[in-house]
């Protein structure tokens, strides 16, 4: 009897397990490419015709409630709010329902592995309707397979329904990625309202303590680093052996960007910059090798963090060292030490080290002309696209329209008065540290304003006045200084539209990880091995697809622009 019962139970368990098995693996792996996929192949063609019909909106609203999902970055901040459910998501949901009768739900994707994650979601057919990524090659690769909706016909047909989107992004950003041959628009580019990139920071209190001036050249910068190292006992006492005069992470190409750029000719032609510019960390630009050689010298003099290469993306070890006060200088995003309110690097320094302890921005890397050359990428930021699994392109576009409304951007960036901001005496907005569900997981909620990166309030005057006050707990002077340096001697990238470069498909991630390896191995090589490590790394990079990209870019540039080396 007992045995019978047991076997019945087992049989029951098995049936449940079987149905679960049959449902789970079949959906993404088997069915999606087979059936669901086929519909998608034909969909773009059908839908391309569909927008020609009259808009189904009445006063901007759907008659029946539509549902869409929107990707949201998850930064995993200590003590942050739930990125899928907080004051801002609820506000967006309310507004969208009220304005357009569209029900919005959010789907989080880890910020630091977003490309991998969005890849997996797309491959599994479970990507959100509105996707965001920093990687255009990913969009292009899926577009080549028919996995992305061509936005061009929708943008034209529904132009009248999307006034805010057109106003905010304009043709420049909407058509930034337009293929000149086919007219396809696979993604629209968010607008970089503030194009600031990388700036170098130094411990002002250490300089003062040692009676040193802020360095203005590489040589002076080097002297300061040496002084930090030699006076570690004075600066850190018992923790002297933990000192890191200059810190980079495994991502040397970003974290030493200003140093690398100072070795590149500021008058480089647009053509050369584009042809060698697939890697946004400047690996294959002329001059980069000498910059890395200098880092290699510093590394071997013991001026840099020994362990930089063994901690991966998203690891907080280096940030923790900065917060604890062991780091003398570093280069990073122009506002890096100000980010995250109470948990910002400068706030931590103030708490843990002392009232004067702070990183301040400096501009120490001179280029060959004596300026401080910095290359900016152009007014583009994230790429927003709709995968072909999106059944609600119009509702999704209305979402973009709503999120591009000046009032929406302002509300998301500064939140409620008294909760996330105060108004100063001269009328500027000053961000204060929020708590609970009002916490902004990303500075000024950049993760929600997916078509805008950088402070953009309803009037330009207010924006300029408020910029310095947007970092809770940070001295506005520090922000202004970093902002000024970030805007010194900049060269803004031009939009080169030569169409799809086939050699770039599917190779982006492989080449980026190779790039990081080359930078890391070259920086930490023994001085005598530097040349061989660098050269063999570069030749491996070129053989693995880098050269094919350079060749195709050269060819397509010449086909599009002829002999012109510079674009207007």
């Amino acid at each position: 009897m007992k045995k019978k019962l047991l076997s019945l139970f087992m049989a029951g368990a098995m049936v449940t397990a079987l149905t679960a098995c049959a449902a789970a693996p079949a959906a993404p792996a088997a069915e999606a490419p087979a059936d669901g996929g086929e519909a998608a192949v034909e969909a773009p063609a059908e839908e391309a015709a569909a927008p020609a019909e009259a808009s189904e909106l009445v006063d901007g609203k759907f008659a029946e409630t539509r549902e869409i999902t929107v990707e949201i970055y998850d930064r995993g901040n200590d003590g942050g709010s739930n990125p899928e459910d907080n004051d801002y998501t609820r506000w967006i949901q309310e507004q969208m329902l009220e304005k357009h009768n569209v029900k919005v739900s959010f789907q989080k994707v880890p910020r630091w592995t977003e490309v991998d994650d969005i890849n997996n979601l797309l491959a599994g057919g479970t990507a959100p309707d509105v996707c965001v990524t920093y990687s255009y090659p990913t969009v292009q690769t899926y577009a080549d397979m028919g996995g992305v909706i061509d936005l061009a016909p929708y943008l034209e047909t529904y132009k009248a329904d999307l006034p805010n989107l057109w106003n905010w992004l304009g043709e420049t950003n909407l058509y930034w990625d337009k293929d000149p041959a086919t007219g396809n628009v696979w993604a629209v580019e968010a607008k970089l309202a503030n194009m600031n990139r990388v700036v170098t920071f130094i411990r002002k209190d250490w300089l003062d303590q040692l009676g040193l001036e802020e360095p203005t050249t590489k040589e002076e910068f080097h002297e300061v680093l040496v002084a930090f190292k030699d006076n570690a006992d004075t600066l850190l006492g018992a923790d002297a052996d933990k000192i890191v005069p200059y810190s980079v992470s495994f991502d040397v190409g970003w974290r030493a960007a200003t140093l690398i750029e100072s070795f590149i000719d500021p008058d480089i032609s647009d053509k050369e910059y584009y042809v060698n510019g697939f890697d946004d960390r400047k690996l294959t630009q002329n001059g980069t090798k000498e910059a890395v050689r200098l880092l290699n010298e510093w590394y071997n003099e013991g001026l840099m963090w020994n362990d930089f290469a063994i901690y991966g993306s998203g690891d907080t070890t280096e940030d923790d060292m900065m917060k604890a006060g062991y780091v003398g200088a570093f280069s990073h995003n122009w506002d890096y030490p100000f980010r995250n309110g109470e948990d910002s690097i400068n706030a931590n320094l103030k708490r843990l080290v002392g009232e004067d302890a702070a990183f301040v921005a400096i501009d120490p890397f001179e280029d060959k002309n004596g300026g401080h050359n910095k290359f900016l990428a152009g007014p583009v930021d994230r790429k927003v696209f709709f995968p072909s699994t999106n059944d609600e392109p119009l509702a999704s576009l209305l979402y973009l329209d709503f999120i591009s409304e000046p009032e929406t951007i302002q509300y998301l960036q500064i939140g409620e008065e008294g909760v996330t901001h105060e108004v100063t005496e001269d009328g500027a907005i000053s961000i204060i540290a929020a708590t609970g569900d009002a916490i902004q997981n990303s500075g000024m909620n950049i993760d929600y304003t997916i078509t805008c990166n950088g402070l953009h309030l309803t009037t330009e005057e207010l924006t300029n006045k408020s910029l310095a006050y947007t970092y809770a707990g940070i001295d506005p002077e520090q922000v202004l200084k970093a902002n000024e340096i970030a805007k010194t001697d900049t060269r803004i990238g031009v939009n080169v539209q030569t169409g799809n470069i086939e050699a770039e498909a599917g190779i982006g991630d492989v080449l980026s990880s190779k790039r990081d390896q080359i930078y890391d191995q070259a920086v930490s090589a023994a001085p005598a091995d530097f040349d061989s490590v660098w050269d063999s790394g570069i030749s491996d990079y070129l053989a693995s697809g880098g050269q094919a990209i350079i060749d195709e870019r050269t060819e397509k540039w010449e086909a599009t622009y002829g002999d012109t080396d510079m674009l207007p």
Partner: protein
Amino acid sequence: MSKTTTAVPERKQSFGSYIRRYWQLYLLLLLPMAYLIVFKYIPMIYVQIAFKKYSIVQSVWKMPWAKNHGMQYFIQAFSNPDFRRALRNTVGLNLLDLVVGFPIPIIFALILNELVFTRFKKVVQTITYMPHFLSWVIIYGLALQLFAPSTGFVNILITKLGGETVPFLNDPVHWIWTYIFLGVWQSFGWNSIVYLAAIAGINSELYEAASVDGAGRFSKMWHITLPGIRPTIVILLIMAIGNIVGSGFDRPFALQNNLVMNVAEVLSTYVYRYGIKGLQFSLTTAVGLFQSVVGVIFLLGANTLSRKLGERGLW
């Protein structure tokens, strides 16, 4: 259950009554069978991706054939320096694992078996197999705390004692040994369980007879215990050899870093990088198929060899 099975050969019975009698056993078999069919056999349909130009939105039957009679992606893989390097590393690391990692659980089981004090034996056994349950990400976290060049505990100890920092994680050669060591540490306790079970199955009369004949500890180990577990050793060895071009994903992926990629990239991480991150599904399916075929060849080879040498094979 044993009661019913012994009854089988006694009676001649029809298929119907046989099923009626043992349906419960077959029901129990259903779940593992379903698992194999759903997760191992159905996916095999998609092996053809290796010979076709993959598209995310097309049925696998409708995808066009790849160039060069469908062999395009195999040619591409073998002409890719990264693939060749990954293949070299996979075989190299697996061989090292085999040479270093395979005998250790056997030796450990032998030693453990000689312990008389059972409570101590149990404690040691439990402690040594515990790391098996740690994920590789956690093990890498521990390794960083211990072996990082400037903040690792071991290196701090070495420098405090006046020595030079050892680049356990950031120099390729040292990294290989760290990789092997961590693998052994994680798995030897767990792997020894099989051997301990086999040892427990050896007839104790053999030991008693040997003692009467005056055999010592070592000769008993050599002449009774080792031959007693030889079939187990051979079977595990055949399986390990069959896996020589295969590799787990978590261990190399968690332990890799940018400074040691030349020796640390293995096929599984290569497939991840090119296939999942780079969306080159056809290329990496080809690599996976190659791995499987080579694995089968090695498995069959080792099996045949062991049967030729008079051992029992897998079948």
